[in-house]
């Protein structure tokens, strides 16, 4: 049973209705890229609060480290050097789960209750229900979830749902020394962002703006960008993220199925098999699942 403050909005592969009685506030984390100094305090705080420690890696010729998100690095700073109008900029973006309002991972997930969206907007993975199929990876328009090689479960930023549940800001927010990461109601965060955008425009960033992409219904992690017209500059932040049509298709057939839970169990061994190979689900497997689905739907 979830905490009251973590009222559930929707669960993966579940069609029974979620609770609807209580009203909770929609929250958001705002990352003001223009105030971020790339100190990685957020990475450290994330590791400490969540008890995860990645490998001590190597330097790969850049400031980034760890180089990518992993099952043990739920947030990483991505450093990009760009030259715009003869001016050098070092864009530093904190990457991690965006907590989409319309979460592709949850839609794609075949395992009941492995992915939860709380009514406050947080999208959380419940690893005890995860079957390690990797569908969330395919479903995510931001390439965020990672499957652990140790336990074949998917991991990503939880927006510190445990902290938020007891009225605390996420660990990264708490650790950020410059206030580049803000946390509050989504409404307040939008207001705050508007002020920052106005300031940036005054400083000559005409295209400054808020990143809250509507293709995924908006996100609960948003960015203030100096160049909101070119999110791609920030280590490939997608300009118009949307859920892969494949996931939409799969979801479209699955939705009316009250028996999806059973199907999930039946397919469990197959999914498990899949994850023993590469973490990405192959197109063939995808098609196969879809075929089976169609048959079942008949």
């Amino acid at each position, binding site marked *: 049973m979830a905490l009251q403050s973590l009222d559930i909005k929707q669960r993966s592969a579940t069609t029974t209705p979620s609770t609807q009685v209580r009203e909770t506030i929609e929250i958001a984390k705002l990352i003001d890229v223009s105030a971020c*100094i790339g*100190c990685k305090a957020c990475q450290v705080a994330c590791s400490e609060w969540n008890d995860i420690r990645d490998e*001590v890696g*190597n330097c790969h*010729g850049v400031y980034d*480290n760890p180089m990518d998100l992993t099952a043990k690095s739920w947030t990483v700073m991505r450093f990009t050097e760009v030259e715009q109008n003869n001016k050098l900029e*070092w864009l*530093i973006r904190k990457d991690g789960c965006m907590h989409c309002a319309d979460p592709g991972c949850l839609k794609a997930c075949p395992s009941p209750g492995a992915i939860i969206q709380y009514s406050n907007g947080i999208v959380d993975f419940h690893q005890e229900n995860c079957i390690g199929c990797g569908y969330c990876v395919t479903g995510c328009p931001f390439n965020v979830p990672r499957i652990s090689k140790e336990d074949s479960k998917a991991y990503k930023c939880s927006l510190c749902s445990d902290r938020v549940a007891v009225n605390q800001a996420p660990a990264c927010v708490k650790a950020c020394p*410059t*206030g580049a990461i803000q946390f509050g109601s989504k409404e307040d965060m939008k207001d705050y962002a508007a002020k920052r955008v106005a300031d940036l425009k005054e400083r000559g960033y005409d295209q400054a703006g808020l990143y809250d992409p509507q293709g995924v219904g908006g996100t609960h992690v948003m960015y203030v960008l100096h160049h909101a017209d070119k999110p791609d500059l920030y280590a490939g932040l997608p300009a118009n993220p949307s859920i892969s049509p494949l996931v939409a298709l799969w979801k479209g057939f699955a939705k009316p199925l009250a028996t999806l839970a059973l199907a999930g169990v039946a397919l469990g061994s197959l999914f498990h098999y899949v994850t023993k190979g590469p973490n990405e689900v192959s197109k063939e497997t995808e098609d196969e699942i879809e075929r089976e689905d169609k048959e079942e739907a008949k």
Partner: protein
Amino acid sequence: MTNHWVDIKNADLIFVMGGNPAEAHPCGFKWAIEAKKNRKAKLVVVDPRFNRTASVADFYAPVRPGSDIAFLGGVINYLLTNDKIHHEYVKAYTNASFLINEGFSLEDGIFTGYNEEKRSYDKANWSYQMGEDGFVKVDQTLQDPRCAFQLLKTHYSRYTPEMVAKVCGTPKEAFLKVCEYIAETAAPDRTMTSLYALGWTEHSVGSQNIRCMAIIQLLLGNMGMAGGGINALRGHANVQGITDFALYAQNLPGYLAVPSDAEPDLKTFLDKKTPKLLRPGQMNFGQNLSKWYVSLHKAWWGDAATKENGFAYDFMPKLAGASDVLSIFDQMYQGKINGFFCQGFNPLASVANKKKVGDALAKLKYMVVIDPLATDTSEFWKPHGEFNEVNPAEIQTEVFRLPTTLFAETTGSFTNSGRVIQWRWKAVEGPGDAKDDTEILAGLFLRLKEMYAKDGGAYAEPIQKLTWAYRIPGKPSPEELMMEYNGKALADVTDPKDPTKVLVKAGDQLPSFAMLRDDGSTTCGNWIYCGVWSQAGNNSARRDNSDPSGLGQTLNWGFAWPVNRRILYNRASADLAGKPWDAKRTVLKWLGDKWGGNDIPDMRPDAAPEQNVMPFIMTGEGVGRLFSLGLMNEGPFPEHYEPFETPLDANPMHPNNPKALSNPAARVYKGDMEAFGKAKDFPYVATTYRLTEHFHYWTKQSRINAIMQPEQFVEIGEELAKEKGIVAGDKVKIRSNRGFIKGVAVVTKRIKALDVDGKKVHTVGIPIHYGFKGATKPGFITNTLTPFVGDANTQTPEYKAFLVNIEKA
């Protein structure tokens, strides 16, 4: 810092040069971001690299490592030629109008009085013209060609924008843009804060880099103002604290001078060191030296310090000569030192020229390492592959490791860069056999004392009679120590104006250094800390963050030295009549009968404006010094000199005078001059620095820091990388004339080749932090590369500018 961390939020312009606060001081840097967000402040960065601070700056300009004086001299020239100075301030609050001795001049880069053989100056002529009244002669019109203002103008007239571009490699337009930003703060109600750190100090001209900024801030009228000042960002939570407590051997606690053999008795010492009054009616606060010094002796030797024995003046060790870090390791290298206590210090990694330091340590009979960690230094004798190639069979140094607790495992205080002393409480017990540093030192002292008592020894008295009145002698508590630093009254302290009035009762803790006496009736372990633990209790433990000023002054949070003053020279934040230059940021104002406002006045509280008591109370003249007399070893005005390892054949400002190539007054030891590399063999300029992911040589021992930045890297520009066929991620070898290191190449747009004096100069950036001990990937020690030469005043090594070559490993 003349101001404090929170005060940065009050600035209109945050000027960062010689530091990289976003990288090295991320927590304090939040106040720069606050100023940007809430005051629309601008952030300007001048640095050899487009660094993390530059990533959030409004404007960035590149500069060649080691050319800061040329740049800042250019700024001074810009302000003077474009008349962008705060006239009223400059005229009243600086020594602009003071007449300088006729004998002083600069000839082709060398000031008068130079002795080439001794590499030092006779400073007799670097002085004021004295009038018959015993005071300095002044010309209030600032027109006399010998007044400091005119000399300053002439001196910096050579630092044209063209010359700046030529010496620094900074494009002229970028330099002028920076000047425009700075010049805006000449308005009385606009301020610039200067944030700097080791990027200015770690040069053979380090102190003069900072002097340049002192001149600039005086010209702009930014000293004493909220959002102004010169702010040294100290590198460690408590490095201000250790400096206050005599980190440098030439200082006693509270920056008191250490006596030498040239001062055989207390009277001679005090006569020599007490500053003279140079202008009528000024406070000349330094005249109280005898009170601070005698109270220190009373704290240390108690009843054994009597009026008759000059308060045990003979007990104080006399400075035998230079005792800075380079001098100590040079003496060790020459085999003149047998034993070395190495406490909280990893010199093999952190002192320049690792090879020389390692060879020096090998000449010791014993070394005691007092540290929470197994440092590289403690294993200097142990082979670690190519990272530390030594032969233990040839090293006879016996090494003892005494494990100590870390900061979170002890109670005590930190003094931050803003001079705010903050008490902290132990969070956890230390591991294993770790003991507090104080317990280890107390144990050593008590055993030594016992040995002297039993076996005798040369001059045992200073040890036998040292005050040691701690409840548990082997474990002095942090509370007892802080109370001792603060000091107390040994007899009733009375009002000098009314001896019947008792100000402090005998036995009470003193409220301020104003109560210190030189008759032996008070003790004080560090005069600038007096007040930190008064009768009211431990003021450093106060945690009231209420801020009625809105300026972040928070006078009831901790305790700032001196006397809880948050902004030094704050009298200068108001005009001659005592009216704040900027009423919205009032620090101090004249209330009609006394000074008041939002800080502790840096002024006699009842000194009415018409008495003309000037704001710089620690100087004998009461004003800030554009001309610094003989206080700096290389001259009263900063002059550009090349780093000891320079890519140029000559100083572009003095192309025909080889004597003026590098700092003429910097000390160079035998053998070290030969160890300097030449540009033909080592064509690239190297500079070393810290990364935000690590703290010095500590956190390489911490896994989580190691994850964030696991391995030594080296930053080079794209152009140099292309020339050398190096791509990002390649392993590269960097050589200086003293050795080599290897690292992973980071190829970046953020370091550009600069056009210096017609020559293309590439900069190679080398982070420190790595070594052969720790959780990070085992690596070389960066200071293998750095030259063993320091600033002429502080002897801080020139870590920031030297020559290397680079190749694919």
